[in-house]
């Protein structure tokens, strides 16, 4: 093997309350694709951000071409020949393709004025190199997601990047678009660049990668040539712990149907989503990121308009046009994006807990603080929220405790059905266990639970039944005891058909 282009050794990174990476070492070879795999929150994105100069590691070193580097800004990483295609496109919608490629290093002539002709020429060349006939003067907002990715690749090439990082580049692409992308990856490989490829989809990993690195809870748990492992081995490595050990499934009698969803659809995001949900049941909703699970559940909850389909609760058909309709009917939705959609960080715990059903705490004309405190105390204790006092601002709590408060807010509405969207995303292991335990308790109390999760052990450990969504539709359903991790992942990625 030739000398590595880039090596990380002993890299660690922590955030308040979370250890994101611990003692990670890896090396990237020229002309090889290294797949970095792991569940959500395993530390993949943190590695990307360290490599691109957005985060600085707490410990460890980065060497590029044998030389130690300290990246204090994204510019330093570029200068060292590292460029990334980020998961969420960080680009400029209102600017032209050419500018998106060259912002930060536009070509200037002897007059120090931007040489547009040169910039467009170079852009066209770069795009042509990856066989992407996008006119450089087009505004970026006119492009599809796939085309935006191509522009990002052209941007990486414009830096003469020796290391190209692709963070879930296929998440929003169709099969043809993925083929195009992989052709370009092969080409970059042939040019002697090192590629870091991050993906959840095993079929893609086995198709494109040469090596793999597997992460779990911020630690490296495996690496080697991709040819040395099977898909089943990788899944086990990623998931790690034997499932049943951590998630003591409570034995809950399952009652009558509470929620019945029929053919829920909207124009572009999901179609014909149908399922029944029973009292005491935990229904896992599994799928890849961007499979339409969140969108469908937000439609159910009245956040976005639904074009077709019906929702019945206890046999009565509901008409839900806003979240307050859903809350009134007895449906709660704990959103995935805690910072933006769930928690109100600048308000206190009490104010957050009582927010979704404030009218319950009104005595006469005014809010009763004792009534609010009473509810906050009892829910806060039930969820084991750790705080100095119930007036403490949510922004001062750890991610896990914020999430507990958000769940408390939804329980305060006394729902019959609760939808939990990635309830343990980005929270520490201790809080995770508390939340898991609590989900079981909810079912025991007779609630019907929908659990959206991208973490397979979580779904398999807690759910009585799992439905799998792919590209906006339900593609499969599994019952507890009659499933395997490989089957579920296969259904979500589409790999199952080939295996079968």
């Amino acid at each position, binding site marked *: 093997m030739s000398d590595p282009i880039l090596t990380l050794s002993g890299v660690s990174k922590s955030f308040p309350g979370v250890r994101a990476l611990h003692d990670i070492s890896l090396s990237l070879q020229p002309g090889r694709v290294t797949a970095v795999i792991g569940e959500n929150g395993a530390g993949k994105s943190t590695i990307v951000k360290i490599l691109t100069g957005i985060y600085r590691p707490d410990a460890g070193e980065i060497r590029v071409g044998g030389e130690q580097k300290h990246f204090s800004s994204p510019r330093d990483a570029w200068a060292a020949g590292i460029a990334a295609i980020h998961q969420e496109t960080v680009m400029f919608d209102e600017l032209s393709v050419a500018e998106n490629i060259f912002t930060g290093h536009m070509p200037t002539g002897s007059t120090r004025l931007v040489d547009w002709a040169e910039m467009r020429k170079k852009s066209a060349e770069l795009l042509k190199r990856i066989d992407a006939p996008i006119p450089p003067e087009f505004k970026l907002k006119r492009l599809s997601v796939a085309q935006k990715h191509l522009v990002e690749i052209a941007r990486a090439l414009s830096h003469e990047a020796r290391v190209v990082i692709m963070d879930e580049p296929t998440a929003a692409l169709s099969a043809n678009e993925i083929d195009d992308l992989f052709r370009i990856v092969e080409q970059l490989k042939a040019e002697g660049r090192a590629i870091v490829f991050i993906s959840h989809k095993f079929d893609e990993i086995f198709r494109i990668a040469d090596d793999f690195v597997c992460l779990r809870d911020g630690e490296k748990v495996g690496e080697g040539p991709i040819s040395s492992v099977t898909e089943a081995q990788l899944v086990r490595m990623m998931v790690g712990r034997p499932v049943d050990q951590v998630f003591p499934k409570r034995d809950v009698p399952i009652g009558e149907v509470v929620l019945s969803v029929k053919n829920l659809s909207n124009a572009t995001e999901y179609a014909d989503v149908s399922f029944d949900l029973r009292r005491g049941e935990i229904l896992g909703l599994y799928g890849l990121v961007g499979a339409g699970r969140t969108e469908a559940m937000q439609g159910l909850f009245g956040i976005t308009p639904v074009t077709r389909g019906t929702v019945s609760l206890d046999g009565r058909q509901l008409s839900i046009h806003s979240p307050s309709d859903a809350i009134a009917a007895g449906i709660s939705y704990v959103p995935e994006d805690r910072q933006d959609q769930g928690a109100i*960080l600048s308000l206190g715990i009490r104010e957050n807990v009582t927010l979704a059903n404030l009218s319950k705490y009104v005595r006469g004309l005014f809010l009763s603080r004792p009534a609010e405190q009473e509810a906050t105390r009892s829910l806060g204790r039930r969820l084991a929220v750790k705080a100095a006092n119930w007036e403490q601002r949510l922004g001062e709590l750890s991610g896990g405790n914020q999430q507990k408060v958000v769940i408390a807010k939804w329980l305060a509405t006394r729902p019959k059905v609760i939808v939990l969207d990635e309830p343990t995303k980005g929270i520490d292991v201790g809080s995770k266990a508390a939340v898991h335990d609590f989900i079981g308790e909810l079912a025991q109390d007779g609630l019907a639970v929908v659990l959206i999760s991208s973490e397979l052990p979580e779904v398999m450990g807690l759910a009585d039944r799992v439905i799998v969504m792919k590209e906006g539709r339900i593609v499969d359903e599994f019952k507890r005891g009659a499933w395997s991790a490989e089957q579920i992942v296969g259904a979500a990625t589409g790999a199952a058909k080939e295996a079968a």
Partner: protein
Amino acid sequence: MNAPMQPPESRYAVLDAAPRRARDILLRWEVILVILLVATIVVNTIVSPYFLDVFNLADATFNFSEKAIIALGMALLILVRQIDLSVAAIVALAAMGIGYAAEAGFGPAGLFATGIGIGILCGVFNGFLVTYAGLPSIVVTIGTMSLFRGITQVILGDQAKTKYPAEFLELGQSYFIKMKESGVSWLFIPPIPLSFLIFLVLTAIFGIVLHKTATGRKLFAIGSNPVAARFSGIAVDRLTFLLFVVSGMLCGLAAALLTARLGSMRSNIAIGWELDIVTMVILGGVSIAGGVGSILGVFLAVLTLGLVTFGMSLNNIPGQVVSVYIGLLLIAVIAIPRIADKLGLRTGR
């Protein structure tokens, strides 16, 4: 990692409220404003013997009460991340309506109703464009500011409206309680002008609604995080719309009080008020980023600004020099904590 997790049964001791610490109380915005207010009074009392005269002070409230009434509505709008720059133009349009209604023979009640009615209509227009059409309020209200005042100018030209019923004009200059009427010599009741009394009553109502009711809590939630507020079942658009209507209504009320006090109106009435009012609100501690503020703060800022203006006018300091002081005050009260933060952080590391 593989050890089974015990469900955390242990309850953390969590207090109902944070223990009160002197430092936190002293750093509250309202306390800073009280200190500022007291300083204003002390300095002015030393400089001018006429300052601490009850009658002078009562008279001084005439000059800011109408703006202060509008500031209450503006405070709620800024709290929910909106702004209404058309307030002064609404005052002009409503005042013109009052002028025509007075010529048509309306009595005081009818004139107030006319003003308030026009104000509400203007508020509905603003609210509709901001919430249902989803446009940024700063641009919408710059537009309606021109539109409302423009309509006033088109209709009125360079005319003035000067015919008002005597009872109406009486209201504009009247005191709710006159010195002589209190009768009892040992009980000192200061004279309170009607407009100031209305401001006091509205302050109490707004304070209670904002700080004690479910609606008020919802406004804080919207201002802090509109998306999370919507996810929590709060009708964000409906409440925002309502606040624009309330703002318009208060402008109409202020227009009636102002016309009654001045006894005449031209199309340039109340010009430039929007910036004075926004200044009152921001100095009152309402954050332009939303979600932070109190009616008490706005009340104290109104008094401080009113007394600064009054004190300086007693000393024949021109109005625009007063505005230098007010502008510096506005920037200083916001900049100083940030500078302190920056220095604090630097020594901390």
